[in-house]
């Protein structure tokens, strides 16, 4: 590949397979993190395990101590394999309708996330359209929208749930509303930016054709906003998952990832907490994946160069 004069002097280059080139950095980082995790698990659980041995007056070796720290029932920091094992048991070990199944809890949270995301996205888009088209709203609404995001959601969530409960709304909807409250913001900001993104020449062109405001919106502003919308939706969907989980915490909900986290911390089931966390991140990755797929599909329709 390289020009003759240099290729002779250089040692033969090793050509890695493209798959290796692509995934090697990720794998190396993951392995490093797992190693650090094991070391941390040993350091953090060491005292508990040593105390237990000494209490029972059992003679122990360093090897037994290390093994003990990595298999404790209620460790401060569970070892990775414990988390994976519990996660696998909770996901596959029970029928999906069982309250012991993580799939069941995951679905409860996921359904609130979907409804919340949908509500939030639609609300966010409507707000953005209003802000772009009505000049007075831009000045009057935007500060409130920004303020709404400064309120700590953990403080507001119980109030919302109690208030909505008082008017007879229970279960999925209050959670979805809290989730929507959190996730509409990035959508509004992104879509406002997107709707204002057409350049002056494009707007002048529409004017030379005497286009109506509706035509300008559907044929120019909205298509221009689509890339911005998807960027926002990717941020927004993870936030709506967080919103749904947070909404499960204050009421001690019986089901959902949040309830699982709460139960775990009540009973000191650290491994269960971690397994629920893993489940939450799997959901988040899946959700972003879905939005990204939709984005790619739309981009293809809109002729974006790949």
């Amino acid at each position: 590949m390289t020009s003759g004069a240099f290729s002779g002097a250089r040692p033969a280059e090793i050509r890695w397979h493209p798959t290796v080139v692509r995934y090697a950095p990720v794998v190396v980082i993951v392995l490093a993190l797992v190693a650090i995790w094991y070391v941390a698990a040993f350091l953090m659980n060491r005292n508990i395990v040593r105390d237990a041995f000494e209490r029972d007056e059992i003679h122990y070796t360093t090897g037994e101590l290390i093994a003990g720290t990595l298999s404790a029932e209620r460790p401060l920091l569970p070892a990775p394999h414990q988390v994976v094992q519990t996660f696998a048991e909770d996901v596959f070990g029970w029928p999906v309708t069982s309250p012991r199944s993580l799939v069941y809890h995951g679905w409860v949270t996921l359904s609130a996330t979907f409804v919340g995301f949908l509500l939030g996205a639609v609300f966010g888009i409507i707000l953005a359209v209003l802000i772009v088209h009505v000049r007075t709203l831009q000045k009057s609404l935007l500060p409130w929208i920004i303020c709404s995001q400064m309120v700590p959601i953990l403080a507001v969530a119980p109030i919302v749930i109690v208030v909505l409960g008082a008017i007879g709304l229970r279960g999925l909807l209050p959670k979805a509303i809290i989730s929507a409250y959190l996730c509409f913001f990035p959508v509004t900001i992104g879509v406002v930016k997107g709707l204002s993104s057409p350049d002056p020449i494009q707007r002048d062109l529409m004017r030379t054709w005497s286009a109506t405001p509706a035509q300008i919106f559907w044929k120019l502003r909205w298509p221009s906003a689509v890339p911005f919308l998807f960027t926002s939706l990717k941020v927004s969907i993870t936030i709506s998952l967080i919103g749904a989980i947070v909404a499960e915490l204050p009421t001690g909900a019986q089901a959902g990832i949040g309830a699982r986290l709460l139960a775990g911390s009540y009973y000191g089931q650290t491994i269960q907490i971690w397994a629920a966390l893993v489940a939450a991140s799997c959901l988040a990755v899946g959700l972003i994946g879905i939005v990204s797929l939709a984005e790619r599909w739309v981009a293809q329709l809109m002729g974006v160069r790949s």
Partner: protein
Amino acid sequence: MSIVSEPTIRHRPDENVSSFSPVTSIPSPARSPGRLVVDAQNISLTFETADGRVDALSNVSLQIAEREFVSFIGPSGCGKTTMLRVIADLQQPSSGTLLVNGMSAENARLARSYGYVFQAPALFPWRTIEKNLKLPLEIMGFSESDQQQRVERYLSLVNLTGFERKFPWQLSGGMQQRVSIARALSFDPAMLLMDEPFGALDEIVRDHLNEQLLQLWKSTEKTVLFVTHSIPEAVFLSTKIVVMSPRPGRIIDIISCNFLRDRTLEIRETPEFIRIAQRVRSGLRSGHSYDE
């Protein structure tokens, strides 16, 4: 090559060639006396900016007849683009009267009397070439079958048949600008307003497009208003050259330029061409001397 000498024969030798004093009454071209499509009287336009008043246009009077090819030339800030935008009702004059196609500029815009070509092609990137051409037609409510016919007709007019399904980024800059010209013509307006349409293209592409534009002008019989800062381009294309000067933006000379409609790039070597180009240049220079 045989055409080279012809323009000199066709050109009327009676014009006051050496003078560049402001010409207010223009000798209209002998061949096409047509109806007026632009009739501007004492158009002025002032902006209030942070730095004070800017006279973008000052007492500009201009008549343009049907089927003329009028170039506006001058240094930046001379108001040539502003004049075009005023005619297009994209900006409103502070004073003066303006008739476009026999009506007010706003009514002319609403009646879709002109197609506008900007310096950048401004194609909508999410639409294919075909869909870009259809955009004004959709907005104006042409029927589906009519739209399809027009796409075919105007794409072939700018030699881009076969590119219907491409997206804008798949075309070169020159091709994109041709699409935007086809788009401006697609709804058959009386006038074509062009604001430095080839300014961003290299000279070879530009020469080529200039020739194509002349062909188009001849075959469609549109009135063309063309903003440029290239003297050869203005002389080559126009039947009339409007020389403008900045601060305040005003017309300092209007030069008739009566080469055959069927002109080729070779006319640029003729004495007649050089003479007109010189007159444009001296007009531009005299405009500049006001600043110093």
